[in-house]
């Protein structure tokens, strides 16, 4: 008996240790950047005192703020347009014969399976071949293109779960198709639409490779800006930026988690 519980305890300690090691591996780099962001000096090798100067410089830097603005507006518009296009596509595809739907779903998977670098290069070449100079619009277009598949993959299963009879019943009772759609269908597929939108938004914010190839004059997102700055030499403003992004992501996710947990508790 004693022996067994001893072993169980050892196993528990082992598990805890394993979790701790992986946590250190995951968070050490992020926390290092956070600490360095408060270092007064320019070099990372010496701690010269606490200062908020890199935060001031970051918020004052137009390059960084423009990149932040571009990242968010591109992600917002890409996710919005992709959600609308994807939702419409699902409605349309559900009215199609099984064969054509399967073909379209197959093609829909191509951007998901394809390597980002190939997607980026191929879209960039297409623009140049058509004589279109790269600009904000070309980045937005590519982002919409790679976001649509995520929306369709999130929304399509919801349509499958849908009871088509309720929609038809509503029509029979005299509701207009539009009214019936918004009152009967929309509530059921909404979670899929929402997660499609959020997935698109995240993918767009996170993207580097496709933006790298399709961006035009002066269009930087945070990703491309970081990449070019690392080549020139890392400035501490980037540490400040990492800290801000990390804290922001943390807060948003914690709030979402708490809210969904609380709801679950009420049930």
């Amino acid at each position: 008996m004693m022996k067994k519980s001893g072993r169980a305890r050892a196993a528990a300690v082992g598990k805890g240790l394993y979790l701790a090691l992986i946590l250190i591996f995951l968070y050490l780099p992020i926390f290092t950047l956070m600490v360095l962001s408060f270092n007064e000096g320019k070099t990372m090798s010496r701690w010269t005192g606490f200062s908020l100067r890199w935060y001031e410089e970051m918020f004052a830097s137009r390059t960084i703020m423009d990149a932040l603005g571009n990242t968010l507006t591109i992600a917002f518009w890409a996710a919005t347009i992709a959600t609308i296009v994807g939702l419409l596509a699902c409605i349309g595809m559900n009215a199609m014969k099984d064969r054509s739907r399967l073909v379209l779903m197959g093609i829909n998977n191509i951007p998901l399976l394809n390597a980002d670098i190939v997607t980026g290069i191929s879209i960039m070449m297409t623009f140049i071949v058509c004589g279109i100079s790269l600009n904000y619009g070309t980045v937005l277009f590519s982002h919409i293109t790679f976001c649509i598949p995520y929306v369709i993959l999130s929304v399509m299963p919801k349509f499958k779960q849908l009871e088509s009879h309720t929609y038809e019943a509503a029509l029979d009772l005299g509701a207009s198709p539009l009214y019936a759609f918004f009152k009967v269908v929309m509530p059921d597929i909404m979670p899929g639409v929402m997660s499609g939108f959020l997935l698109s938004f995240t993918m767009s914010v996170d993207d580097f490779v496709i933006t790298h190839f399709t961006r035009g004059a002066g269009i930087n997102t945070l990703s491309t800006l970081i990449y070019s700055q690392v080549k020139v030499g890392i400035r501490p403003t980037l540490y400040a930026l990492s800290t801000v992004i990390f804290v922001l992501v943390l807060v948003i996710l914690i709030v979402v988690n708490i809210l969904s947990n609380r709801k679950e508790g009420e049930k």
Partner: protein
Amino acid sequence: MTKTSMNSNLKRLFSGPFLAFILCGTLVPLGVIAFYGFTDRSGAFTIENIMAIATRNHAQALGLSLGLALISTVICLLLAFPLGLILKDSKLGKKGFMVFVFILPMWMNFLLRTMAWQVLLERNGIINIVLKSLGLPLLDIINTPAAVVLGMVYDYLPFMVLPIYNALIKIDKNLIEAAYDLGADKLLVLRKVLIPLSVPGIVSGITMVFVPSLTTFAISTMLGGGKVNLIGNIIEQEFTVGSNWNLGAGLSIVMMVFIIISMALIEKFDREGEASMI
């Protein structure tokens, strides 16, 4: 024409914008890349750009990419599977939070996370400053393939953890208990129940780590110090520096073929046939 068929004709039109995006954003670009890959600068047909993979420089880069991607995928798998098991068994109340903690870094820009390793690993970087003050030997892996593998593992580990964890929690508890009741020991349960039933998760984890590792150029640029040349770097350079688009397109086609082959190989292990998405 009945009302419903008219309706469904109308509905089909709704996929118009989607079809336009598929056409302009996926199919035509693939056509363009194929056209460039199979022509030379004057536009004449050639397979030289495809065969260029056989030249020593390109073959070496592809081999290195395959090797490093394979190593990082295996390391991710070895780290993530036990992690998934531990998370699955952890107390219910903490579970959501624990999983959250392990995939949180995924939400942070991967370039910033890669940059963090450059800061940590530099010869006179944070890790070595600490090691030096403790009188320990220095860690000298920056600007080598080892650092690139480290970066890949770090960046893509959450993509392995999440699908494996999702597959593991779906396994019916009764099944595991039944196995124990029938006298199976832990190892046997792991081998005969847990691993086989989490294959779909493992497969999607492997694809989500292997493909980006195979095609990356950012991680090798940032942690390889310009000395680790992967196939992704070669292709990127062909477009941003070399300006030989035909060669770049040809090499991309070859790379796509390698991705398809490796995915087919992975799929073969997936008895379910369908990898579950995220």
